[in-house]
């Protein structure tokens, strides 16, 4: 069975600081990887996804993530955060075979101070 670990539960940054949120997964097979974001009062939205190919994927709003297969990691990065990035971020893994439920981490709550 798959599992996902997000190491940072709460992160506080000032505007323009760089961001890296850790995500490690456990699964023996091929996976698809996702980062979802939930802004205050809004529903889960897809930030970026990795299915195959270039392990460095770019998403919306300047976010990117790198899949490192040997480390079972899919860390999220942004060079310079904005106040509007304040949200909760969820990493999720999906097996690449069979029907494909998402297995989520516990989330990281990011607060960006202006």
């Amino acid at each position, binding site marked *: 069975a798959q599992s996902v670990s997000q190491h940072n539960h709460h992160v506080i940054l000032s505007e323009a600081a760089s961001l890296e949120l850790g995500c490690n997964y456990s699964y023996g097979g091929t996976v698809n990887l996702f980062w979802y974001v939930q802004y205050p009062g809004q*529903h*889960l939205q*897809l930030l970026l996804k990795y299915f195959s190919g270039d392990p460095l994927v770019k998403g919306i709003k300047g976010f990117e993530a790198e899949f490192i297969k040997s480390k079972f990691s899919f860390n999220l990065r942004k060079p310079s955060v904005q106040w509007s990035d304040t949200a909760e971020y*969820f990493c999720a893994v999906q097996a690449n075979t069979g*029907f*494909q*439920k*998402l297995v*989520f981490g516990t*989330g990281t709550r990011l607060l960006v101070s202006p």
Partner: protein
Amino acid sequence: GAGVSQSPRYKVAKRGQDVALRCDPISGHVSLFWYQQALGQGPEFLTYFQNEAQLDKSGLPSDRFFAERPEGSVSTLKIQRTQQEDSAVYLCASSLAPGGGEQFFGPGTRLTVL
């Protein structure tokens, strides 16, 4: 519609009451998933439909939980004899492909059991 919709957005139930939560997926989406999100946690899988067929219900926590999607579009999650531990946000997601792929989430129904 433009996205996944869920109703009601908020539900307060007395312990022992039955509740029904509705999900309207994106039109034409074959796959429909239900997730449960407890406070401070990531969403956890409950059940999966491919069209009208419920192909996996392994995540349903007890036989008090029941889901259906009789015509392959709208789905209802029913919880009988609600307990306090059922308090959570119930999320519905749909995807175009059979089996999953990129999932689009609704706003959720926040259930509070008193």
